[in-house]
C-alpha cells in the first residue's frame, strides 16, 4: 500500500465526498417530500391523481437509477429542459427515492387503525389536523425501519452519479485508477469514504428506529 499516494489524494476524496453528501441530502429530502405527498394521495385514493401516482411509483421502482439519470441528463435537453450534472443527480435521486418513500409512507399510514382517524374527527379536528397530529406521527413511527433502509439505499445509489460526469467519489476513484493505475489505494480510499458517510447514517438510523418503537404502541 502506497501511503504517500493515499495521503496526497485524501483531499480530492474529501471534496468528492462533500459533493456526494450534498447531492445525497438534497435528493433524499426531495424524495421524502415527494414520498409524503404521493403516499398520502395513494392512501386516500384521490381519483385521477391516485392513478398517476401508482404509475409513477411502479416506474421509479422498476427502472435502474442509471437509466433514470441518462433520461434526465440526455433526454430532457432534447425537449428543451436543460439540466446540469448536479441538478440531474438530485432529480434522479428524488425520482427514484420518491417511489420508495411513497410506498413506505403509504404502508405506514395503512398500519394506523382507521378508528384513530374517527377518534380524532369525533373530537372536532379537521382533516389536516387529524393527519398532522394523529395519523402521520404514528405512521412515521411504523415506517421508520423501512424509511432508514431507504435512506441508506439511496445514499449507496449515488455511486452511479459518475455516469453523468459528476465528480463524486466513484468518479474520483475511477479517474485516479485511469491515470496512475493505483487500483488498490484508490479503491481503499473509496471504501473508507463510503463507510465514513454511511456508518453514521446507519447508527443514527438505528437510534431513530429504537425511539420510534418506544414512541408507540402496544396498547
Amino acid at each position: 500500500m502506497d501511503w504517500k499516494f493515499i495521503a496526497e489524494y485524501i483531499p480530492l476524496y474529501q471534496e468528492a465526498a462533500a459533493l456526494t453528501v450534498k447531492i445525497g441530502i438534497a435528493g433524499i429530502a426531495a424524495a421524502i417530500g415527494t414520498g409524503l405527498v404521493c403516499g398520502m394521495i395513494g392512501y386516500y385514493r384521490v381519483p385521477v391523481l391516485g392513478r398517476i401516482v401508482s404509475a409513477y411509483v411502479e416506474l421509479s421502482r422498476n427502472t435502474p437509477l442509471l437509466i433514470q439519470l441518462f433520461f434526465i441528463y440526455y433526454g430532457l435537453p432534447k425537449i428543451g429542459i436543460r439540466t446540469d450534472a448536479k441538478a440531474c443527480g438530485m432529480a434522479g435521486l428524488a425520482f427514484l427515492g420518491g417511489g420508495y418513500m411513497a410506498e413506505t409512507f403509504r404502508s405506514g399510514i395503512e398500519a394506523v387503525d382507521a378508528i384513530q382517524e374517527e377518534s380524532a374527527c369525533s373530537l372536532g379536528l379537521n382533516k389536516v389536523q387529524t393527519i398532522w397530529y394523529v395519523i402521520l406521527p404514528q405512521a412515521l413511527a411504523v415506517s421508520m425501519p423501512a424509511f432508514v433502509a431507504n435512506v441508506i439505499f439511496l445514499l449507496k445509489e449515488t455511486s452511479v452519479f459518475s455516469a453523468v460526469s459528476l465528480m463524486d467519489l466513484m468518479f474520483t476513484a475511477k479517474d485516479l485508477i485511469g491515470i496512475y493505475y493505483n487500483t488498490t489505494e484508490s479503491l481503499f480510499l473509496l471504501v473508507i469514504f463510503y463507510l465514513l458517510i454511511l456508518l453514521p447514517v446507519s447508527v443514527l438510523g438505528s437510534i431513530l428506529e429504537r425511539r420510534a418503537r418506544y414512541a408507540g404502541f402496544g396498547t
Partner: protein
Amino acid sequence: MEREVLEISHLRKQYDGQTVIDDLSLTVHEGEVIVVIGPSGCGKSTLLRCVNALEDIQGGQIRLHGEPISQKSRNLQQLRQKVGMVFQNYELFPHMNVLDNILLAPVKAQKRARREVKEEAMALLGRVGLENRAESYPRQLSGGQKQRVAIVRALCMHPELLLFDEVTAALDPEMVREVLEVILDLADQGRTMLVVTHEMQFARAVADRIIFLDQGRICEEGPPETFFDAPKTERAEKFLKTFTFERKNKSKSGIRPGEEKL
C-alpha cells in the same frame, strides 16, 4: 319539558343496500340519560356513529340543537365539537401522553388557551382519580384508567351531548365499576347522554329512559323500572332472559361413579 338537544327523525342507514337502521326517531332532552340496549348487531353502534356523522345516512335527519348534522354539514367540525364520543377501545392517541391527548382538540380545534385548558384538564383528571398520571403514556395505563382518560378528553371539549359505546366491554370485571361510577357521576351532574351498554344493572341505575333496539328499530322504550320489571314486548322479555340463569333441576339426588344414566 326541557330543551331538545338531539332530534333524530326517520333515520335510515344502509350498508350496501342492507338496512341496519330503519325509520328510527328519537328525541333527547337536556339533562336526559338514554340507555340503548339490544341484541348484538341490532344497530346500537351504528346509531351512535350516525349521531356524530361518522357514517353517512340514507334517509331522515339528525339535528343537534335544531341544526342538521350529517357528513355534508358545512360546519361539521364545529358540530362534532358539541358531541363527545367515547369508544369501546378508548382510542387514545398512543404517541401522546395523557395531558396532550386531552389538550389536542381544545387547543387545536377550539383554539382555546393551553394554560386554561390544562387547568381544567388537571381538575377533571383529579375528579376521576388520575391527577398523577398526566405525564403517562396510554400504554402505561390499565384499561380502566385509559377509559377514564378518554372520558376526560371528551369532557374537556365542553360537549352538549355525550355518546358512550359499550365503554366497559373491553375491561376486566374489576375495572368496570371505576368507569361506570364516573358515568353515574356525570349523570348526576345533569349531562345529556346516549349510552350503549350490556351492563343491565348499570343501565337500570343510570337511565332516565331505556330504548330497546331490535333489527334497527325501536322495539320498546320507557323508564327503566317498567322496562326491566314488566317489559311490554315479547322480544324485550326474551332479550332480558338472556341475562339471567336458572337450573331446571335443583333436587340434588347425587350420582355415584358407574351409575351415570344418560
